[in-house]
């Protein structure tokens, strides 16, 4: 997998490079600001960019702006935002195009090396990886009262929340202390209520999550 990293703090940039290389991924470029990110994506056509939110020159939300620009100009490029804080507005901006291949994680999660690498791989494969914090914040935003999500049972919501975090069916079953079969039943019920017909299973999964997160 070919990765571009955008992170201005050398300490963290070097850490992520080492971590991803250790797990057999190729870091084709590591840049320090948003403009350089867009150029690096244009030049290297990576599978995924791992992007810090706050970078020079203004140290506010350069990373998010650059990530949105990357997805507009190079559709299909996966973006994983890593940040020291969660801002649901940024996550909403990223999700706005309704496509998969996005993630937003707190940098704390990088400490779980395997989970982090899994998240990078999943997002690069078109999936999602949302930090539980991001999910929680997105869910407290105003939602439509009459959306299809209203039809979900509380249990189905829990399942969908865990799906948004990017967990597998087995992991969801473990977290909710139910059988894999029960999880599968909940998921197909969710797909039905959200009007997602049987086609590509993975794609349906992403769409369900996006519907959920966009409220």
């Amino acid at each position: 997998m070919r990765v571009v990293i955008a992170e201005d703090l050398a300490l963290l940039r070097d850490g992520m490079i080492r971590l991803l290389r250790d797990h057999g991924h190729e870091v084709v470029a590591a840049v320090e600001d948003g403009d350089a990110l867009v150029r690096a994506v244009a030049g290297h056509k990576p599978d995924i960019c791992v992007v810090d939110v706050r970078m020079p020159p203004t140290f506010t939300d350069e990373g998010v702006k650059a990530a949105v620009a990357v997805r507009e100009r190079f559709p299909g490029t996966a973006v994983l935002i890593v940040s020291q804080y969660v801002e649901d507005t940024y996550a909403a901006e990223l999700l706005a195009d309704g496509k998969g291949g996005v993630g937003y994680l707190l940098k704390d999660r990088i400490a779980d090396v395997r989970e982090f690498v899994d998240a990078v791989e999943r997002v690069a494969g078109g999936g999602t990886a949302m930090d539980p914090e991001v999910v929680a914040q997105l869910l407290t935003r105003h939602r439509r009262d009459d959306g299809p999500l209203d039809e979900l049972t509380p249990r189905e919501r829990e399942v969908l929340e865990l799906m948004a975090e990017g967990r597998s069916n087995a992991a969801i079953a473990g977290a909710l202390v139910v059988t894999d079969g029960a999880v599968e039943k909940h998921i197909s019920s969710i797909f039905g209520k959200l009007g997602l017909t049987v086609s590509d299973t993975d794609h349906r999964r992403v769409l369900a999550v996006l519907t959920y997160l966009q409220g």
Partner: protein
Amino acid sequence: MAPGDGGRTMPAMTVLKSWGRDLAFHCVGLVTSIVGFTLWVTGVSVTLSLAITVVGLLAALVFFWLFRWFARIERRRAALVLGEPIAERYRRGQPGAGWFARLRAAAADPATWKDFAWTGICGVLGFTLAVIVLSLWSSVLYLISLPIWYWAPAPSMSLGFTDIDTLGKALACAGVGLLLVPVCGLIVRGLTRLELAAMVPLLRPPRGEELAERVDVLTTTRAGAVDAQAAELQRIERDLHDGAQARLVALAMSLGMAEDKLDSDPAQARELLAEARGEARTALTELRDLARGIHPPILADRGLEAAITSIAARSPLAVSIEADLPSRPPAAVEGAAYFVVTEALANATKHSGAHAVLVRLALRDGLLVVEVADDGSGGADAQGSGLVGLRRRVEALDGTLSVVSPPGGGTTLHAEIPSRR
């Protein structure tokens, strides 16, 4: 010299000084009242005689200006007895306004008409009182000096009702003269108060405008303080984000990788653990520095001098400290002074190429005076964000901050902060 300055000397000296000041007040008043009377009479007659023409309006503007100038001198004369000049406040004209707009603005300002009133009153009242005072004191002086005149070859001396023809009489008169000194002093004191009673209300800005001006100042300085505080919070957030918080992320990352490698590559895992420990230590140092930057514990515990000695010891520059602080200023004042010094030292270290810095701290007349002078290259930008932040912080406490930084001439920061509780 302020009244009451003689508090440490004998009371008699204080009384004599106050009589001396009264006398000086009226001596100067004799001159200014003549000027004032002339000015007033000329002003009124010239302006009225030209009133129907445009020239009359121009003349009025000129005389408004002259009355203002006269009032300014009179406010200073009042300082002879009040200790400080009467405050002056006129409505601010618009810059670049034409003469007619200025005339209208001046005519609309009550202070202009009060100046006019005092110029006239001073011409009569000030003059009369000055003549009385000078006559009184010269009579007393004459009586006291009679024995000298007696010895001197004067043809004849008379007090009107008796001739001074014996030394005994002369000495008796001198005695009476000496007894009359306090009487005369008290009468003059009363006359001075009389004049001030007419003068001060006319020359002092009305309380309302004083308050309005104070509100303006407070509004500005409060906005400045709020901005400074917001900027400070932002700086702290940035320091945390880029410093300790990032260190902790890196530390967690190193620990995670170490855990990952524990079985497959114990040697590298050990290396990662050592790195993690280093990062933890650095994070602690950064947190400590940050906390010290927010409010250093030593400042609260031991006061300004100790806190500044402590940062001076950590500075790469040769910092000498001259402190004269008999008591501790309020905490907010200490905090502001501390930041003036730390910011000045940081600037001197970073930008100026200075070798030595002199920090002076003194508590003078209820003002905490802080001065930081370096021998660096000068040319500091007084509008730079650091200095603007400092100025706002100092102004929020009604203090002032000035920066002198000629290119090549070192930089001196001078702050004065009122320190009364």
